[in-house]
């Protein structure tokens, strides 16, 4: 905002409140505006209502999982924000499945704060701000 810039909005999609709080704390302290969704359905509703600049998506969630959410979002005729998929599943199978579904990169939980910020900044085009 200081430099006449739009504050970037990030949507955290995770069913675990602790993880949401953790990610929110990191991103907000870096000056981003954060919104949360508890599952894929809620995330989809929010993402369709107002566009976000970056998505932070968990895989395993009730109602609609991260894959389902991304596939549905990527079907929409709208600008497509980058999506960081965050999960504990370490298998390579998930990584490719995540890309297939429309994730932009894949991070393993627990994500270190500096790691998350580096990814977020790069993907938001602000890494060297």
């Amino acid at each position: 905002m200081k430099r006449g810039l739009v504050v970037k909005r990030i949507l955290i999609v995770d069913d675990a409140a602790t993880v949401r709080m953790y990610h929110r704390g990191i991103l907000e302290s870096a000056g981003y505006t954060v919104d949360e969704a508890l599952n894929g359905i809620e995330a989809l509703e929010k993402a369709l209502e107002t566009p976000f600049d970056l998505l932070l998506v968990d895989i395993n969630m009730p109602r609609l999982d991260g894959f389902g959410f991304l596939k549905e979002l990527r079907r929409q005729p709208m600008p497509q924000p980058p999506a960081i998929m965050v999960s504990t599943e370490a298998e390579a199978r998930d990584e490719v499945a995540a890309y297939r579904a429309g994730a932009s990169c894949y991070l393993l939980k627990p994500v270190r704060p500096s790691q998350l910020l580096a990814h977020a900044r790069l993907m938001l085009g602000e890494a060297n701000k």
Partner: protein
Amino acid sequence: MTPLLEQFLSESREFSQGIGEKLMQMEDAPSDQGLINELFRLVHTLKGNSGLFTFPEMTRVLHAGEDLLGLVRNGQIAYSRELADCLLDAIDFVMVLCADIEATEQIDASRAQDSARMAESLRALMPAAQTARSVSAANSSKPATITQDAHSAELPPLAELPKATRIEALHQCHQGETLHWICYTPASDCFFQGDDPLFSARQTPGLLWGSAKPTEPLPPLAELDTYRCVLEFHLLSAAPREELDEHFRYVPDQVRIVQVNPGWLSLSEDSSEDSSAVSAQPVPAVPEGAAGEANLISAAPLKAAAKASIEDCAEQVAALESILSAQRQILMLDDRPDWGVGRLKAAGSVLLNLANSAGDRVAASEVEAALAECLATGQNSMLLLWLEASKEHLIASCVAQPGPSAYPASNPAAGPSKEPKEGAAEAEASLAKPAADEGIKFGRRAEDHVTGPRSLKVDQAKIDRLMNLIGELVVSKNALPYLAQRAETHYGVRELSREIKGEYSVINRIADEMQDAIMQVRMMAVSFVFQRFPRLVRDISRKLGKDVQLVLEGEQTEADKNIIESLADPLIHIVRNSLDHGLETPEVRRACGKRETGTLTIRAAQEADRVVIEITDDGKGIDPAVIKRKAYEKGLIDEAALERIDDREAVNLIFAAGLSTSEVVSDLSGRGVGMDVVRSAVQKINGTVVIESKLGTGTTIRISLPLSMAVTQVMIVESDGQLFGVPMDNVVETVRVPRSDLRAIKQSLTVVLRGRIVPLKALNTLLGISASPRVNSDDELAVLLVQAGGEVLGLLVDGFKETIGLIQKPLAGFLSGLSAYSGSALMGDGSVLMILNIREIV
């Protein structure tokens, strides 16, 4: 405690409970895939949460649980009771750990072994192949270490020595000194033997050089068992062999001492040049993980932002590389799903932003062009080509540009949200400002939009405070009618009196509604208590070798929080009794011609202003003859009563203190102190409990409770000019009896009412007041019929007043010793009303 930790604890409890419930449901539907998925998700999420902190004990167990459930989910192993048992134990353990963390913010050191044991027992349920895989690299690297050891038995790895040390050692050898190479591998449980390996190593006599390294690759921090030693020390000493043997005399089996041949030192001279990095490291630093940073959550990003350090730069390069590699994989995907275009656009956004991050306008426009072409042709190749060509350049510019750089501030298209609207107008400087303004509003609006949770967790103390306040309001409000009366009688202002009464009715209505609303907040569903029964019944029935099906009904029935909370213990007691003494073993049931599986039903329902809970079992029932005999033997009833009481009354004798009917005292339902405790607990909250039983077919226990204890309905009576309150629960009826109808039987006063002899007692006498009961002008006495402990009794009082609802306060301090009163309450005129404890005074 940080908010994050609090959140973690509260969520952990919630999830643990959910896992327990799901496991119980699985018992009935072991092949329900939806349930298994849900169960897996809960454990998985809980594990993920624990990984944010340094709670390896918890993570280890949950990890094992997750792996196990993963196998169940994929159909590789079948759900079994044994498996559920193990998982339930694990969840219990997690709850214990949560309690630890809540108390001290860390896990008690003694839990590490339990944790390892728990994880092992979970893993024991997995097929061998899976276990081998899951136990991970830790063990697989062991054989390698051993062969290396065998090899190095011949020649110590002197190449490790830094050059300077080696030359120094060589020098000493030439001077005739004997050097020894020591390989000290402390036992993995050495910390429990009281050893301090690092200290021992450092104190090695004649130490020239030393190093420590892990014997196996260190697992991720979350799984690291800090109580297990996995280090190996390599030491070079100039001390004689005897001295070294003496130094390591307690751990000879863990030490290998080799005399150094000077030739080895010179031999290895050229093998390693820059090994000094190895030598300086005493113990490998704990791997930097999120766990370490998590505690500093607010500080860490700020710190990171402040220092445009090398670390940060490295982090950024690593992130950039991982993002680039991901985009490459995405662009190379050969499937063509219907969301493929969106996926391509997203990759385009990412690359565009990477170019923007690098501050490279040219690159950015190249990406846009490539993306446009890709979208037009439906081929990913253009972006892929660009990516391959620009990769090095992007990384280089990322490294070359630490610190503030020319961020393309004038480019409003930087964010994808802006892209569609103003992609064409990006050069227009005049547009930039309104766009930014709009963005700010947009941002704020978005914040306003953040939807809060639909239910709030409120501290109990706050609700209790509200309750107390409304109680005071009710009392103050009751002062108004007195005021109106005074206005009329004392000051003679009838108009004012009427107006006060008018205002009073308004305030009265609002206060009533408010009270009602607050009571609603305090209402809780009985499921709060019921939810623990599936597990309880399961565990106990299995322990007893009985097969029991639990049926819960009316779990949504609500009552005041205090009522629900004080219901838990009596209910558990009753359920245990039913399982222990009521329901039979399958063999016995079969012999009786019953279904082998017994049924225990717990049903809650609201009846008028009371909650009724029924616990029914189809067990063997209670034999009234046995109860009667026992009661007689214990002196609870006399011979006359033995003859007189019917079966129904006999069965209810089970509530009498000191009656144990079970022939064998079991460890489950205690030593027969049960049912009288149940009754007193229920009576304490103004409830009643009755039992019905039919020998051979089963038993039903019925507990009736008030919906709320907050407001007590009290009848006010007068005696010797003083007012007293009698709880309406005790009041049967009020009658006026002509003095001539009183009869004296054996020195006690009685009256015949509707064909029944009712004993009479004067309230004055009971309270130690010497005045005798007053009669009215018709020579009638006021008799308040009260019920106490099943007996109906008449209290002689001077007069009856109104019935009011009031908030009863328990007597405190000195007064708490006065058992004749159950409490006091403030009246509208400011006076104190003492409320009689009828059970005590009669």
